[in-house]
């Protein structure tokens, strides 16, 4: 494994400066190691999206030359981009990791979940997620959430205690001081851990560029059949789109986030390299979620409400 050192800001006057990426990396690695030192059964939520990919990259560095002492968990909505599933399986094999998959489809098939009329399965992930946590007795669950993504997330701690129902109570949050993270929890409770809390979308991309991290191809511009719903370009698929009134057209697009196909919108883009993507984000007047996530638009407090139910 190699690390670029040219980003260290050390100068003649200031030999011990760190670049913002080095400072963020050091902090995230510290968080991974704290969890490894304090918890019995941690797991990394891994969707094949850029944030979870950066998370895994940081975990690999944190424990080098030993293996990452955590397994991975993917909550599979069944509405996946094939490129992402291919990436997921290749990555798991490459690093000799163990992957748990919780299938939303299984829960629909046996009646524990019901398909929503709009076909969106993203909100349905909470039940399989909590089931997997309970069944595997995971006590710490890493998520790639960033505080810059959404205003409810801006209030969330790095170590976020969840009760036996997986619920988040913003009023019961523990104050977090210095770099002293409190992971104490009762049996049945667990802690969500967000090592990328202090990163922004741009930091993530700059880090991907610096570290030369490979991503699923859908993050770069490509031609794809899409249709418009609620102002967003969605990929046609068996999940319930398009309707007759939604004409399909081929466009040059890319994805800023990767989630369930039914609620992740594409953006018009000709960015084919990491540098192109960074330039595009720096000039964008829309936030990542505002541009591409339908589920956040359901209500003003959509994210907070889902988090209270146990969502990430």
């Amino acid at each position: 494994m190699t690390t670029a050192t040219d980003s260290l800001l050390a100068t003649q006057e200031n030999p011990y400066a760190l670049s913002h990426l080095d400072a963020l990396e050091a902090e995230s690695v510290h968080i991974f190691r704290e969890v490894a030192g304090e918890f019995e059964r941690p797991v990394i939520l891994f969707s094949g999206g850029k944030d979870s990919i950066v998370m895994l990259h940081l975990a690999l560095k944190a424990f080098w030359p030993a293996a990452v002492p955590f397994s991975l968990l993917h909550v599979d909505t069944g509405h996946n981009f094939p490129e992402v599933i291919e990436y997921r399986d290749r990555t798991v094999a490459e690093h000799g990791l163990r992957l748990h998959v919780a299938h939303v489809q299984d829960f629909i098939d046996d009646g524990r979940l019901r398909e929503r009329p709009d076909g969106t399965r993203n909100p349905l992930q909470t039940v399989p997620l909590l089931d997997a946590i309970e069944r595997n007795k995971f006590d710490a669950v890493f998520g790639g959430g960033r505080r810059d993504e959404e205003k409810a997330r801006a209030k969330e701690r790095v170590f976020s205690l969840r009760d036996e129902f997986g619920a988040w109570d913003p009023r019961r949050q523990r104050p977090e001081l210095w770099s002293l993270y409190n992971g104490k929890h009762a049996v049945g409770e667990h802690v969500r851990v967000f090592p990328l809390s202090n990163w922004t979308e741009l930091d993530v991309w700059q880090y991907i560029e610096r570290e030369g991290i490979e991503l699923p191809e859908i993050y770069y511009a490509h031609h794809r059949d899409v249709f418009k719903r609620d102002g967003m370009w969605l990929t046609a698929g068996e999940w319930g789109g398009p309707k007759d009134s939604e004409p399909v057209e081929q466009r040059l697009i890319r994805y800023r986030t990767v989630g369930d196909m039914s609620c992740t919108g594409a953006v018009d883009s000709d960015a084919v390299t990491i540098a192109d993507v960074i330039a595009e984000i720096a000039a964008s007047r829309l936030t990542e979620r505002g541009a591409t996530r339908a589920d956040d638009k359901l209500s003003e407090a959509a994210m907070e409400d889902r988090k209270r139910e146990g969502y990430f």
Partner: protein
Amino acid sequence: MTTAHLTDESGATSLLRFATAGSVDDGKSTLVGRLLHDSKSVLTDQLEAVERVSLGRGQEAPDLALLTDGLRAEREQGITIDVAYRYFATARRRFILADTPGHVQYTRNMVTGASTAELAVVLVDARNGVVEQTRRHAAVAALLRVPHVVLAVNKMDLVDYAEPVFAAIAEEFTAYAASLGVKDIVSVPISALAGDNVVEPSAHMDWYGGPTLLEHLETVAVVGDAGSEPARFPVQYVIRPQTEEHPDYRGYAGQLASGVLRVGDKVTVLPSGHTTTVAGIDALGRETDIAWAPQSITVRLAEDIDVSRGDLIAAGPAPVPTKDIEATVCHLNERTLRPGAKVLLKHTTRTVRALVKEISYRIDIDTLEQRSGAEGLEVNDIGHVVLRTAEPLALDSYADNRRTGSFLLIDPADGTTLTAGMAGEAFETVRTTEPDGEDWV
């Protein structure tokens, strides 16, 4: 103005963590809103959401406080729960802003925000000058040893941009903060509403020759003199791959809390007191011969001695491990902290059982008087305590090292974080007598 997020091809900039303090009436939301907005960190969809909600409530202008009040309860009740973190960037620097609510019962929140801050912005209304709240903010910044403090004298537009008004407030504040041990104090006259001296230099205050607030945030020195600090390395995790490729690798993973560590340095492992030398340093997959705070690294030692999570590897003058700790604390929880309480104490990577032997005194944060005879500390109280731990801890004084001098007290019954602790005395200038008052009332 510097609105681009990127400077050079590498995009490398430094990072400043800072906190804001000020009551709602001082215009803190407006100031935060302006910093975010003028640095292009509020994007169209966020602004539209704020406008939509503001209009829905019958307000004519978008309420920028909605940008920072993210939770349902906050919006419904118009209150702010706890610290929120905001992110913005200019061409010169990345910023993490700990936005602390400006309520009367805010001490706990400001302490939380200030714990990681390298700079605190204390906001004052130019019409009111230095008030009780201002002194409280200065005291908390001094208590938490925030290295840099900025006094932002706001609403200069409402005092005709008059220099004498600013000068008098700046002088009074600087004298007070300096007496508490704050080393670097810069005062800036601003109008957050009109935009004077926040991002753009003011056209109304020719008499002011200093930097705008943002310019100061962009240029203030964020790196301490790591070369002169003793190295402190709390061991987080022992890395032993036991693979064919690395059969004998044994590394101690952690984040350097302070100072510089070099291969060949003589070090002491605490609390055992064993001494050895640094045989190798791995900086996240790359071998190096030097590392400095706050890098996360893995250290290999020359001798195979017993080292585990919770130990401290120290170079230079090492702290003497002790079971008796005197500390200044801020109580964070609604449950009263009383003498005789059995708690857990988390210091760096070590958690031990501890007993609250004595609550020596409570500090009146408004007057800085020490009130002895306290039966317990209530939420938001700051006081001095004596603790006895079950195992010896290698603590530095908080005045010397914010990372190895700080700790948490935790309720062993349910894991609740009770109290934030700082080893040693609260302020550099200890006030044991009644203040005579005329300077700061």
